[in-house]
């Protein structure tokens, strides 16, 4: 896995290779511009291009599936048909699928209307975000890891056949998330885990699937502290005596947040080994080494037996007391 040389040269080597790869692939790519490729979705405002949802219903009442239009009527999106203030480009089926007159005139020609099935993630998302972007929850989707990996709104939401009526989800959490994030499923099925499979905690409690400013699309507390403190508020402090690694490197310095074979979701099976990894003599100034009287062959297997307030203490520098 390692490339010879120092880290900087390794990094530059890989960067150059990747740039060349991208350039080569770019040259080989199809240069024809698709009519559907849009930088951003701009709704045509010419009212004569629109036919209204009732016209759509004449064919789509039971097509492509039985009760298709009824499902739409029952969905939250149907309220757009009741809008009286804005133009037809914001109403009903055509609010998402675009103007339908050419499609109708063409006898149902699928190429004359926008269909989500063959559209790119960017195009699909642009359509949805035209209404749903406002508010912090969705405002970073354009830069989200999901969109950057070709995951669009309709990969998780299904406006017509949602299994979950709330937010028109294709599937419940966490099953929906496991569909792609398989590696997380095995973590949540470890003996020590956050209660995601039990329905107590959702993936979206900690991550914002629509993107954000933090890595891993993590959320934060209202005071922009690490998201763990939303529930584990007693660890937030501030404390007179901080365990600095907790505040600086975060809970993941010692814990595996999704699940682990180790108790308390620790990264190591024995507490003393985890502590000793930092609290040892080191070339860098950092965590103090353990004192000479901590004979590891005796009672010092579990450092937290004595250092009970390991996340921080207000009254004891050795974390013996709260």
């Amino acid at each position, binding site marked *: 896995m390692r490339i010879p040389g120092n*880290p900087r040269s390794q*990094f530059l080597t890989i960067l150059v290779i*990747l740039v060349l790869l991208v350039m080569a692939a770019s040259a080989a*790519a*199809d240069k024809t511009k698709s009519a559907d490729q849009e*930088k*951003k979705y701009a709704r045509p405002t010419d009212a004569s291009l629109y036919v209204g949802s009732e016209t759509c219903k004449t064919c789509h009442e039971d097509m492509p599936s039985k009760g298709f239009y009824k499902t739409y009527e*029952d969905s939250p999106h149907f*309220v757009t048909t*009741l809008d009286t203030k804005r133009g037809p480009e914001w109403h009903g089926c055509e609010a998402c699928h675009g103007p339908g007159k050419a499609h109708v005139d063409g006898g149902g020609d699928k190429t004359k209307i926008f269909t989500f*099935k063959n559209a790119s993630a960017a195009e699909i998302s642009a359509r949805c975000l035209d209404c749903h*972007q*406002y*508010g912090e929850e969705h*405002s*970073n989707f*354009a*830069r989200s890891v999901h969109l*950057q*990996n*070709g995951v669009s709104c309709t990969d998780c939401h299904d406006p017509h056949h949602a299994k979950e*009526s*709330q937010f028109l989800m294709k599937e419940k959490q966490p099953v929906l998330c496991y569909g792609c*994030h*398989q*590696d997380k499923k*095995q973590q949540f*099925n470890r003996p*020590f885990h956050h209660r995601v499979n039990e329905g*107590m905690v959702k993936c979206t409690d900690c991550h914002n699937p629509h993107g954000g400013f*933090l890595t891993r699309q993590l959320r934060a507390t*209202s005071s*922009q*502290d690490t998201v763990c403190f939303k*529930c584990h*508020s007693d660890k937030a402090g*501030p*404390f007179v*005596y*901080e365990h*600095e690694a907790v505040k600086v490197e975060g809970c993941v310095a010692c814990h595996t947040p999704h699940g682990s*074979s180790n108790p308390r979701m620790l990264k*190591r*099976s024995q507490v*003393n*080994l985890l502590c000793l990894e930092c609290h040892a*003599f*080191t*070339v860098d100034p950092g965590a103090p080494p353990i004192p000479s009287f*901590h004979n590891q*062959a*005796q*009672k*010092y*297997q579990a450092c*937290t037996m004595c250092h009970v307030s390991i996340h921080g203490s207000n*009254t004891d520098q*050795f974390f*013996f*007391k709260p």
Partner: protein
Amino acid sequence: MREIRNARIFQMSGRAAWNCLFAAGLLVVFLPVARAQQDEEQKGIEQGNYNIRQSIEFGGRFTNISGDSQAYNSFVNLQQGPRLLGFTMEMRSLDHHATLFDRLYFSNFGYGGEPNLVSRLRISKNKWYGFDALFRKDQNFWDYSLQANPLNPTAPFPNGPAGFGAPTCTSCVLVESPHLFDTRRKLGDYNLLLVPESRVRIRTGYSRNIVEGPVFSTIHQGTEQALFEDYKTTVNTYRLGVDFRPLPRTNISYDQIWTYYKGDTGTTDPNENPLFIVAGSATAVNPVGPTPVDLGVSFNAGANQPCGSTFQIAGAGLTVPAGTTIVNPACSAYFNYFNHGRTRTNTPTEQLSMQSNYWKDLDLSGRVSYSAGDTGVFGYNESLFGRESRTNLRNQLTTGPVSGRRVAATADFGATWHITEKLSFLDSFHFSNWHNPVAFDSSTCSFFSGGLTTHANVFASAGTLPLICAAPADGNTAAGATPVHTGSSGPDITLLNVSKFLKQDEKTNLAEVDYRFSQRFGARLGYRYRSRTIADATFAGGTFVFFPNSQNTRTPPAPFNVDANGNQINCPVANNLSDGTCILTTTFPADSSSTPIHEHGGLFGIWARPTNNFRINFDMELMSADKSFTRISPRQSQDYRIRSRYKVTDWLNLSGSLRILEARDNVPGTNNLQHDRVYGILAIIQPNEKYSLELGYDYNDVFSQIIICFVATPAPPGTTSCGTPFLQQLSTYTNKSHYGYFDAMWTPFHSLTARLGANLTGTSGSALFLNPNAVSGPLDSKWLHPFGGLDYHFAKSWTGKAYWDFYGYHEDPTAGTVAGTLAPQDAFAPRNFRGNLVTLSVRYAF
């Protein structure tokens, strides 16, 4: 606690549970209700202007648990009894124009005693409001016996009482975690959005987070006494926000958030630990005993824990009959302990955020927030009564306020510039700066005596003291009595002011170029730069009063007992008053440090959808830093991910994923290498509506190595010296997990569905065992959860369900041990359990 828990778990016998399952099966199959046609979908009923759909599932659970029920409760905690397993109600306005609300959704599960309980309510009226309420409650029981366990050996104590003496100290082995707890967390989150579609909309919200319940803990004061905490923390958060849409496709939001944290946990020594008797001389002026004392949780006769000659046989002249087993009065032990303070942290936050697509080629979003809150501990009071043998401490009372602040400022900015239809430039900038200055001004009165059976001598100083200490109730206030100090005794009166400061300043910028080659293929290339500066500082000073004797050789409490050159600070003889009292007022050398870290990262990702049925994406990040904050923080890392899904046919879906994380901090003296590799495959087979099978397998390989320095006697093999008495060794940790699962469903006829599945995890690994009594524990374990059941739609709207779940946890006690031998912790307190659960329920949906 164990008795309480066991009493709660009324378990059926295995045969009874199976009989119930069988009876349920018969009930379902032979129920004389006509098997109505299964309604294809839940259509609901229409009443007034609403369509109403409801479903309720209720029933009961029967359990049969063998093995360590405490571990079962820690892992699973599903108990027996009647349950409301689920309820859902949806109301939808038929014309989308109802009077009070257009949509209502209410659901819950877990009522009746489940460890996880969730209720959700959503009500909305299109243009007017949306209300969202979520309430969650979970029961957190924890008693995994290896946690915080001193791993006491079974060597008997001479003169030990039953269970502690010859031939084997069976009672030494702790079968429960000293840090057992049984807490409840209640999380409430309520949000109201007003006029959601208008140009100005208003948001309000309230959240409440309560954690409470009994917790056991330990305190290190000579030995490890067991404590009880009446744990309670509360967080209330209030939110008020407003959104403006001043321009087309532009939103500006302003939020005021106030968070108020309350910590009200109190700690006492409940004397629940095995109690031993200490007894003093019956002829003394103030005889002691027979009095029960807490010797703590560490019992190691060979290592003189809790003390040498821990148990003795009483002779004549004591307050107990001769021949009684008593505790060595020289031992460290507690008669009682109390600790309480009210922690209050109040954090107001202001946040301004914006998002705009106003310009055709540019998406912008940003956020600025500022928090400046106060924290304090009020009414802090810690009192102990007992003995710390190292210092002869007998009574101590500490009070004093804690006060501080948490100030955090963050700014985030993100932009996407759509340069062409295919090419975009993305930039994300994150700035965060927080600092926590917090101080503790403590006042401590300490009294000393020569043993557990000796009362503290109270010194009547003639000087003007900075603090008046009330004598303990049993103190010896006779004129001329002087405290019995040791060379390690601290001051008799301590006024210590400690002010500490921790700060991090962080700036991260991620610039990426995203290119969409076609509808089906895209790639991106990015560069991340992160700069952090972590700074801390400590300022301390105080006044210390040393009574005779040794008043000029004892020191303030560590680490404030040395000067800038590392020399011990003593109270100078020149400060002695006429009665020998020495008062020292000093300021300790300030200690501060600053650690700048610069990280550079390269990102690359590609995604492809060669066909509508196949998608694959790959992304990687390579990082290099010039420094690490901890020894296990990587200086270099490589993170690779591949995810793919392929719909082979209409009835077969295949998925595969790979994640490889390589990290290292391999500087001399640390030599840290880590990897975390996960490989997974999944197949979903669904030939028709009658059959489906999901089958998957994941392999996870975790590895770490790092040089550690420690003290161990006897020295483990393979160690070298890293400065006497420290030993150095490469600590290697491996953890390999295999996770297999399947979930099969079969619908033999329209109204019956059978399900069978399993989640199976097997873990094996190795670690450096420094303690001879350490066990492999979870590192060689199996965690099994097979399940199966029937859903029988026996009448219109009615479904009967009968499900079986098995939860099994098994640690291999022979792993890492000499064949035929078991470590005491495995022999006396195995964590293994097997739990059979049968859940019978009926679901009614209309």
